[in-house]
């Protein structure tokens, strides 16, 4: 299945602004994050800590809604889902 990943600000500079990932059916949000961590390489330190966990300040969305950290392993994505990843907002 296809998952779109949008990254913004510093994370966009690391991951690109709009990625298309091809994942096996039934993939969880945790699987998406593992894929992104591998892509990011060393630069991923801004997003993931040394254990590979998403840093606490990172905001994660699925189809425009915030995803709770507790759901990462259980949240199964669907074909066409949009995942977004960004640092704290700074508009205004």
């Amino acid at each position, binding site marked *: 299945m296809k998952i779109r990943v949008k990254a913004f*600000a510093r994370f966009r500079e690391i991951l690109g602004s709009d990625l298309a990932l091809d994942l096996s059916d039934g993939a969880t949000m945790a699987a998406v994050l593992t894929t992104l961590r591998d892509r990011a390489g060393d630069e991923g330190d801004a997003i993931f800590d040394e254990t590979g966990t998403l840093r606490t*300040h990172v*905001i994660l969305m699925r189809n425009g809604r915030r995803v709770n*950290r507790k759901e990462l392993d259980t949240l199964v994505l669907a074909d066409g889902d949009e995942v977004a990843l*960004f*640092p704290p*907002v*700074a*508009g*205004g």
Partner: protein
Amino acid sequence: MIGITRDVIDAGSMIEAAKKPGMGALVTFCGVVRDDGGVERMELEVYEEVAIRELEAIRDEAMQKYAIESVDIVHRVGSLSVGETILLIIVGAGHRKEAFAACEHIIDRLKQTVPIWKKEFYRDGERWVPGEAGGQE
């Protein structure tokens, strides 16, 4: 009107358009690119669908919470120079107290929840402006 734009924001025409007969007070907040320690320009980016939805939610919340008649919010993105308007918020109300309170509430909320980011460009470098908000709830 709620919007994200790449064009210059015209405060005068937005204020005129916001006026309705029952209004006695319009309070406007205009955010501007500040020359902060040598900033020359700024680039703003947005997660547009989510930003529009958040701005609408902020407007609806303010309309419920305060005795006001209207809320307009336009946020600019793209490349901006020092002195250019980043953001315009207009709150119209029968009376001034509510207009001031609602306008200040709206800008505080906007800085916490609307997915927009700013990168400042200096003569010799650049930096992402840190957000005011904390991390994930």
